[in-house]
């Protein structure tokens, strides 16, 4: 087995933050005599990738298998990548300093459309052939998974297989089938064929795309149904996760408290594709938090999920944790809050004397618009919530909004400014005069990007010029004093939209953009839309067409991927959006017949009774 440390070490004296490359963290797993090695890659730098919970879960699952080693690898920062190219050092794994291409398989997470070109940079630095169809018999299998797997087509040609849905159980099956294929001396083609029988695993080479429609080869099921862990309470988060030396983002113990969200926001892909809701039990969560803190020595724990405040036992969990952690300096955090007074009570319970900022997401400025997107929040609820927050001593509140939503008018855009003015007014009413200068409302405005498997998957994304116009309408409506207004980069949103709903034809564009130097697109200061526009034009593809509306009866590039939510539900939801009619969350009210439980043969699993 090749060990590249002697070649890497001399490079470390001249790069930024060498801690990215040195391994030996507490909890890192070193299996010396493994017969099977899987590289686990996050296609960005160490300090972003180490925050990824899914990779932590898969790392633990792999290392628990006998004779199997998990080897982490990340995209090196550009200073290191340049040195590695100069000295002919290929991308290496942290645990064994093994060339990544010497692993039996490489698992790459697909967190976000803007990492697509970084994935090619990873493959290129590894010396792995970019296109799956041209890979040699001795090259590792390249397997993807993660949020972007639900429209896998833009990157399908770079992957041997892509897992749709929950990975923790599937990974063991993938390893077993691959080990068996190696033992039997199967060819790459035969191996992939064997892998295609694993539930949830999509093998792009088993489908041909004809006129934009994915057609399966003989004997291959026409649709790949997502993989799901039916009972989340039967799972545990990693007991001894790797503890980074470096100051990574989300540097803390993370304990997943529930998976899925059925609030039904019509723009939200995660809310559609990770259904149904599966809660874990309070006793298990408290046990895992205490074990995670004891094993890692972390000073913070986060209770994660798409909507943690919805957990039916959250208050009980937080009371038990704050009692047990008293006097240790260890803090508990929640990733998001609902717009209601219950959330403010929870925040008080956690904050103790500390008052950072509170974050809420009304998403839209008018009731009409919030009804269209099914964000079941009223202006009155928002005002009650912020009144309580400011009365309880908070001085900073952050509000998330989106513009460019379907049916949006200038009045809806101006409505955001009106709503923020109203928040400022109630804040000034309840904050004592001497402290009013400290009131700060952070307003963060994202651009709506239509995503696959949502009720808005057929909608068009507004163009760059129109987006800039609406941004100026918003800016004029926004109070100046006491408000910090920030935008998502409109160029980034435009590209995200073009990549999110494309098909296999985008492989050429992604490769062309990478060849032009797009390596770190997820970093705003490294991102250049011009490189991508040149790549689109070179390939004869118009990104504006990709961002435009689709025929609701036509075929979509992701039609062969089954999230469990039925297309008729999505159509129905789109129709209700047009009428401004909302749909209730089935974990609080009646079933909305989204189809997921029927098609996957499962049910939502709650640990107690939810209260809204």
């Amino acid at each position, binding site marked *: 087995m090749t060990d590249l440390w002697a070649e890497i*070490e001399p490079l*470390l*004296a001249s790069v930024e*933050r*060498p*801690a990215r490359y*040195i*391994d*030996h*963290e*507490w909890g890192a797993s070193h299996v010396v005599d493994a017969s099977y090695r899987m590289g686990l890659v996050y296609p960005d730098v160490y300090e972003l990738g180490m925050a990824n919970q899914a990779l932590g879960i898969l790392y633990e699952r792999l290392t628990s298998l006998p004779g199997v080693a998990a080897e982490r690898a990340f995209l090196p920062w550009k200073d290191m990548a340049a040195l590695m190219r100069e000295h002919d050092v290929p991308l290496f794994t942290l645990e064994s300093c093994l060339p990544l291409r010497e692993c039996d398989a490489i698992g790459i997470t697909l967190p976000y459309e803007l990492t697509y070109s970084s994935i090619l940079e990873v493959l290129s630095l590894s010396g792995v052939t970019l296109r799956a169809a041209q890979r040699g018999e001795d090259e590792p299998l390249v397997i993807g998974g993660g949020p972007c797997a639900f429209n896998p087509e833009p990157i399908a040609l770079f992957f041997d297989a892509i897992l749709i849905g929950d990975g923790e159980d599937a990974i063991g099956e993938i390893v077993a089938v691959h080990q068996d294929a190696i033992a039997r001396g199967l060819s790459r083609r035969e191996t992939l064929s064997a892998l295609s029988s694993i539930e949830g695993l999509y093998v792009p080479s088993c489908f041909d795309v004809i006129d934009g429609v994915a057609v399966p080869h003989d004997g291959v099921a026409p649709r790949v149904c997502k993989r799901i862990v039916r009972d989340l309470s039967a799972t545990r988060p990693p007991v001894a996760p790797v*503890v980074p*030396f*470096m*100051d990574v983002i989300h540097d803390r113990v993370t304990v997943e408290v529930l998976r899925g969200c059925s609030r039904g926001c019509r723009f939200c892909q995660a809310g559609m594709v990770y259904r149904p809701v599966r809660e874990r039990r309070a006793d298990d969560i408290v046990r895992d938090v205490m074990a995670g*803190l*004891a*094993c*890692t*020595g*972390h*000073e913070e724990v986060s209770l994660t999920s798409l909507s943690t405040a919805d957990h039916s036992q959250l208050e009980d969990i937080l009371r038990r944790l704050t009692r047990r952690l008293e*006097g*240790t*300096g260890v803090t508990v955090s929640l990733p998001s809050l609902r717009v209601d007074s219950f959330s403010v009570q929870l925040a008080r319970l956690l904050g*103790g*004397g*500390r008052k950072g900022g509170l974050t809420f997401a009304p998403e839209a400025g008018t009731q009409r618009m919030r009804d269209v997107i099914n964000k079941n929040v009223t202006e009155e609820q928002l005002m009650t919530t912020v009144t309580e927050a400011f009365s309880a001593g908070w001085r900073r509140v952050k509000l998330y909004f989106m513009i460019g939503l379907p049916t949006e008018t200038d009045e809806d855009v101006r409505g955001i400014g009106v709503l923020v003015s109203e928040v400022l007014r109630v804040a000034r009413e309840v904050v004592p005069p001497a402290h009013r200068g400290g009131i700060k409302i952070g307003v963060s405005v994202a651009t709506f990007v239509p995503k696959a498997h949502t009720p808005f998957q057929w909608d068009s994304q507004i163009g760059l010029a129109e987006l800039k116009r609406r941004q100026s309408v918003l800016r004029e409506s926004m109070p100046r004093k006491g408000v910090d207004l920030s935008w998502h980069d409109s160029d980034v949103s435009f590209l995200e939209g073009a990549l999110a709903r494309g098909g296999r034809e985008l492989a050429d564009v992604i490769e062309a953009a990478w060849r032009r130097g797009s390596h770190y697109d997820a970093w705003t200061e490294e991102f250049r839309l011009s490189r991508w526009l040149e790549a689109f034009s070179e390939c004869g593809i118009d990104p504006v067409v990709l961002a435009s509306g689709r025929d609701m009866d036509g075929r979509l590039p992701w039609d062969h991927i089954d999230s469990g939510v039925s297309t008729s539900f999505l159509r129905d939801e789109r129709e209700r959006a047009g009428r401004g009619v909302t749909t209730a969350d089935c974990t609080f009210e009646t079933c909305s017949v989204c189809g997921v439980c029927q098609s996957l043969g499962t049910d939502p699993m709650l640990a107690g009774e939810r209260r809204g």
Partner: protein
Amino acid sequence: MGDLPYRLRVLYTKRDRLRFLSHLEVTRAIERSARRAALPYAVTEGFHAKMRVAFGPALPVGTAGLAECYELWLREYVPANEALARLQSATPSELEPLDARYVGVRSRSVTAVYTLAEYAVDIEGGAPESDCRAAVKAMIDDRIFTVEQKAKSKSFDLASVLLKEPVVRSTGERCAIELMIRMGDQGSLRPESFVKAVLERSGGSGRIVSVTRTSLREEESEARPS
């Protein structure tokens, strides 16, 4: 809370791969090892309670240390050898704690007590040992040593900064220069800056392979320069 009765001084190493950690990364790693060791550590007062711990002089990224130091305040007494064993079992081996002992709560702070540091700088492929020695001698005769750092120049009076004449030692293919440096409030002489200048003067094409702080010392125990 006032002064707490149990103040544990720990000597530790920073070596091999982990010499590439920054000071901040080392401090965070050690705080986490103290939590993993489940020692009854004290926390600071105030809204944001933090572990009460203090670190000796920082080591730069890439520099190893054979006897670095931190102090941890405990709420309850734990025998020093037991505390050491618990820390050892909860710390990566390259940051291994070597010794732990209680010090008086009123002793001088660990950030101020050590003002002298000994270093060994290993060189590969340099000029002959005798040329290095001659270069060291010439630099000491110049007395003032000026370093260009980030477009600024900083001058050191070697008669005050170097506590004794640096030792040049040959170790087979490599050569090592040993220095004892007095650390200053306004930035200390970095041993690699001095050794680079030695290499330039001696006309060799040598390369620094490693820099190690071999010990930290208190000024009182050493002879002050005349």
